[in-house]
């Protein structure tokens, strides 16, 4: 069964999602069923990661006689849909499944009182399927299909609280943005198909040569995925969507955003990696977008009064760090001396920041959801003195806030450290912006902590008690992960991140799987 692992990664959550609407009468069982499915998927993704790290790139051909039969007899092109899983894809799949599990656990109590839960859990599983499909596939059109699955499931979940008008507003904004972006992705896929007559990414990357149509396709793909991952100034949908979605979906929605970031990296490094002389330009675009993203995101966050909206602006600003780190790596991709000096470390910082940010931002958004659960409001002006009432939430919030500001020994520290040093070597101005952003991040979280948790206990929150156990468990798991990743960054970097970085950098390895060359 080991060889069918990539197919099962998709089939099992799909099975769960298709069966969940049948449990309309008993919504508790639907929640437990979703929890079981996410746990199984998490185990499978661990197995997959182990396979990839020990054996290299895994290839799975859908519909062939054998899973590794890439080329049909007598032909030199791949014709079927092929999954090509390298360390980067397995790493993203691991984060997606982990976060879906945490989200399902948290949702068990968080949305208990609402109706329509069987559809909620089905959509949660479908969102997971979309992310897994996006990060594992090696086929361009398949990437588009799963991008749409993730986008539609995400926007439907954003509109879950349909008794609030704002939820529908955020939902249609997210849906519009994601559908326009994916249509442009489809258009550029059409351009590439018209040029080369194939859809496989590894095959295309060997065929691509510099051409006006190719460059326009690259630009369209770049800007569409940049919009889907929330780069400034196309970030407006991010605060709307993250604010209105139930807090249990937030972790998965974050991973969906970073799956688009993954697709952006994949397009820049693997699909168009063969066009060598133009890549420095793309790297500079990515770095500058990153700097803009982190600075504007954090300054907007400083003036927010809505707690979840503040945290979503921080999510934007942290995306900037990833873009900056990987952009620095992309800029020096063709300079082997600089690449080994700081490019590889920069990319490691950027990619390590993805999982770090997913963990601590989910933690923070979950604490915001817990505050909403007990107080019924998200306005920071009306909160205060909750630290005594909710000790676990407070501890989780402190851990998350320290991690996002890059204090040692929490996990944001290691990746930010790498990014500062490497971006300083490319251009000192970039590092200055990164550090200023970090300081402002700490400042705005001090604001949240002071106004929500500290201060005198208010009369209207006399009855408040700690949130139910599943929510606490989910938050504590993430807090422990935060501390572990921060204490031993070296282990994570060597086991998980550097293989992923090498998977992106080594283009020839990606191009030559399954005897294609």
């Amino acid at each position, binding site marked *: 069964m080991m060889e069918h692992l990539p197919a099962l990664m998709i089939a099992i959550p799909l099975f769960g999602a298709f069966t969940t609407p049948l449990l309309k009468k008993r919504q508790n069982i639907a929640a437990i069923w979703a929890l079981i499915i996410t746990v199984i998927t998490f185990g499978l993704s661990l197995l997959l990661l182990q396979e990839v790290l020990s054996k290299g790139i895994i290839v799975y051909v859908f519909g062939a006689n054998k899973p590794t039969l890439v080329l049909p007899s007598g032909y030199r092109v791949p014709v079927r849909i092929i999954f090509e899983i390298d360390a980067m894809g397995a790493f993203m799949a691991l984060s997606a499944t982990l976060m879906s599990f945490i989200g399902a656990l948290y949702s068990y109590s968080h949305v208990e009182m609402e109706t329509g839960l069987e559809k909620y859990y089905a959509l949660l599983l479908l969102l997971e399927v979309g992310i897994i499909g996006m990060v594992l596939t090696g086929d361009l059109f398949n990437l588009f299909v799963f991008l749409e699955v993730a986008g539609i499931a995400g926007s439907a979940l954003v509109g879950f609280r349909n008794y609030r008008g704002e939820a529908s507003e955020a939902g249609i904004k997210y849906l519009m943005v994601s559908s326009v972006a994916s249509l442009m992705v*489809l258009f550029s896929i059409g351009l590439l*198909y018209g040029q080369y007559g194939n859809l496989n990414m590894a095959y295309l990357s060997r065929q691509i040569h510099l051409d006006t149509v190719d460059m326009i396709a690259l630009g369209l793909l770049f800007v569409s995925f940049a919009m889907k991952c929330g780069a400034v100034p196309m970030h407006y949908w991010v*605060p709307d969507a993250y604010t*209105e979605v139930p807090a249990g979906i937030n972790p998965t929605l974050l991973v969906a955003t970073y799956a688009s970031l993954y697709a952006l990296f994949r397009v820049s490094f693997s699909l168009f990696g063969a066009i060598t002389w133009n890549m420095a330009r793309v790297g500079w675009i990515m770095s500058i977008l990153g700097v803009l993203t982190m600075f504007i995101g954090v300054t907007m966050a400083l003036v927010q009064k809505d707690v979840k909206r503040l945290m979503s602006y921080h999510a934007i600003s942290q995306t900037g760090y990833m873009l900056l780190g990987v952009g620095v790596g992309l800029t020096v991709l063709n300079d082997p001396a600089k690449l080994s000096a700081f490019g590889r470390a920069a990319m490691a910082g950027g990619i390590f920041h993805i999982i770090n940010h997913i963990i601590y931002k989910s933690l923070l958004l979950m604490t915001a959801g817990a505050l909403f659960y007990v107080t019924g409001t998200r306005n920071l002006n009306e909160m205060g003195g909750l630290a005594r009432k909710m000790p676990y939430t407070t501890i989780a919030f402190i851990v998350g806030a320290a991690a996002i500001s890059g204090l040692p020994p929490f996990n944001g520290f290691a990746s930010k450290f790498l990014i500062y040093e490497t971006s300083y070597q490319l251009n000192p101005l970039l590092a200055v912006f990164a550090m200023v952003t970090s300081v402002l991040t700490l400042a705005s979280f001090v604001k949240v902590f002071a106004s929500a948790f500290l201060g005198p206990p208010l009369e209207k929150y006399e009855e408040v008690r700690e949130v139910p156990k599943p929510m606490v468990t989910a938050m504590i798991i993430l807090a422990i992960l935060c501390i572990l990743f921060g204490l031993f960054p070296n282990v994570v970097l060597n086991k998980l991140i550097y293989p992923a970085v090498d998977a992106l950098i080594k283009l020839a390895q990606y191009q030559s799987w399954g005897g294609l060359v």
Partner: protein
Amino acid sequence: MNGNIIAINFPFIVVALLLALGFYTIGFKRNLIKVVIGVEILESAVNLFLIALGYVKGGYAPIYTLAPKKAVGNMVLPTPQALTLTSIVIGVAVSALMLAFAVNIYRHYGTLDVTRIRRLRG
């Protein structure tokens, strides 16, 4: 020469104009349902682009049932047609969900004017 290229690439030009019309609708119309119509025009334009990519001059449809004798070895490319089928279904799904959101927004806001549907900002 230039006019000749326009004559040959005529369907592609139509696609580009339709994309422009769709973007114009999304960017400058104030009614939400008009915006949804704009997205649908975009979708149709991309579908038309894919099908036009697959056409071979003088080719026949890739179906063997009761096909004329000349069709063997002279068929249009079938892959873009399969891709377009998928794309059409996705288009229907997206517009259905958008209309549901629009109905729900009208319930709560009492309007379909995009400039007034912005409680979430800043």
